[in-house]
């Protein structure tokens, strides 16, 4: 028992040692994964956010919003990325397309329900005050729905970072390449890469929660 604990501790110590020892390699691989993940996340937001917000505002397309979320959940990301790579070949933009597809559902669904769920009395009051539909969406519904909307972006971000890593296992480079290469990098390298991915996702989620907090504070007096 004690011996097992020692082995366990030494594995993690080795992994932590690996990080400074191979800082340049890890940074380069992490940058590859981050570039892929954030490009895809950005495109997914640009596509999904306007559609979700507008449908939610019009209270239309419930089936699309629900369907997007259930399909998004059911799709095994690793099979999807594999199919994309088998179909289009390995490449930055090919992988980006697959990640964008996986990132869209949570953003679209949450944007839809964030706006759709705003109290209809509030929206009616805004309409009665003479606000245009656009003003209602950006000035009333968006601020009120912001926490839910950003929660969707956060889920998509973690998901896309995780899947960008998997793309590496299928030959897409980045931290996944280290993870799938036990013979070259040993346990310490695989664990170190896993720690890097976890840190990247947690840091992104933390930043988004800061944005969420700042936004809701700024919006509070108006809402």
């Amino acid at each position, binding site marked *: 028992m004690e011996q097992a604990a020692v*082995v*366990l501790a030494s*594995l*993690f110590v080795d992994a932590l040692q690996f990080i400074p020892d191979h800082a340049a390699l890890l940074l380069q691989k992490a940058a590859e994964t981050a570039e892929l993940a954030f490009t895809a996340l950005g495109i997914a937001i640009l596509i999904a956010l306007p559609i979700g917000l507008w449908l939610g505002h019009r209270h239309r397309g419930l089936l699309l919003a629900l369907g997007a979320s*259930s399909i998004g*959940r*059911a*799709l*095994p*990301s*690793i*099979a*999807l*990325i*594999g*199919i994309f*790579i*088998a179909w289009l070949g390995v490449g930055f933009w090919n992988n980006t397309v697959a990640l964008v597809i996986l990132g869209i559902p949570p953003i679209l669904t949450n944007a839809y329900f964030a706006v759709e769920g705003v109290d209809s009395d509030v929206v009616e009051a805004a309409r009665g005050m003479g606000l245009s539909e656009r003003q209602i969406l950006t000035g009333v519904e968006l601020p009120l729905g912001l926490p839910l909307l950003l929660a969707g972006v*956060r*889920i998509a971000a*973690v*998901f896309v*970072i*995780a899947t960008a*890593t*998997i793309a590496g*296992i*299928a030959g897409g480079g980045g931290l*996944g390449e280290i*993870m*799938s290469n036990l013979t070259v990098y040993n*346990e310490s390298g*695989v*664990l170190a*890469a*896993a*720690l890097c*991915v*976890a840190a990247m*996702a*947690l840091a992104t*989620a933390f930043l988004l929660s800061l944005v969420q907090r700042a936004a809701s504070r700024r919006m509070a007096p108006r809402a």
Partner: protein
Amino acid sequence: MSGLRLADGGGPVIPDFGHGTACLRDNHWFCTSWVHEHWGETLQPALLQHIYLTLLAVGIGFAISFVLAIIAFRFRFLGPPLGAVSDFLYCIPSIALFLLLVPVTGLTVTTLVIPLVAYTLFVIYPNILAGLRGVPPEVLESARGMGFTRRQTFWRVELPLAVPAIMAGLRVATVSTISIATIAAVVLYYGLGGPIFEAISQPDIFRTELVAAGGLTILLALTADTLLTLLQRALTPWNRQR
């Protein structure tokens, strides 16, 4: 495993698929013959393992969520910290969580189940809590008026009324678990992720195996979703119009 190995010699690297039909040699998207031949030795065991893994993870996750939700329901101040912990776990990508557990729990099914349980908590726990808290105060008032004790109110009023929310959480958790469980194969050849990883780690992605195992995963998720929807209808006969 399925007889995949590299061709020897200096020629182009083409996987040798054993008795290579034209379909397999050209690496088509779906070769019925391969699926037929490998159903018994590869796909069926993987599917059964996948179902077992999902049931185990969702079952344990549901039990933990239920206890946590009851605690947070009784002691309101515990709600936010419990929510924060499950939020935190959800932000760690599954692939990293699986790998980081290997030194602790080894190459065992336990290593696969722990992260899956952690992710189900994120979905099931808040749903149970929201369901319990969503019971209208008038209803609780009339339960009290009928002389129900606190325990009776919980089991006979609050819990039944929370069933739709609980079942919704269970459905989402089950479907996501089926999908995330494929990633578990990064540490251990187990479940439908096994053939998927085997297929994508070929020099030339083995399309038939990828499509067959990926398709089975999606079918399993859809089947589970349908069954749970039917169960929800059966459990809440008063809620038919939904």
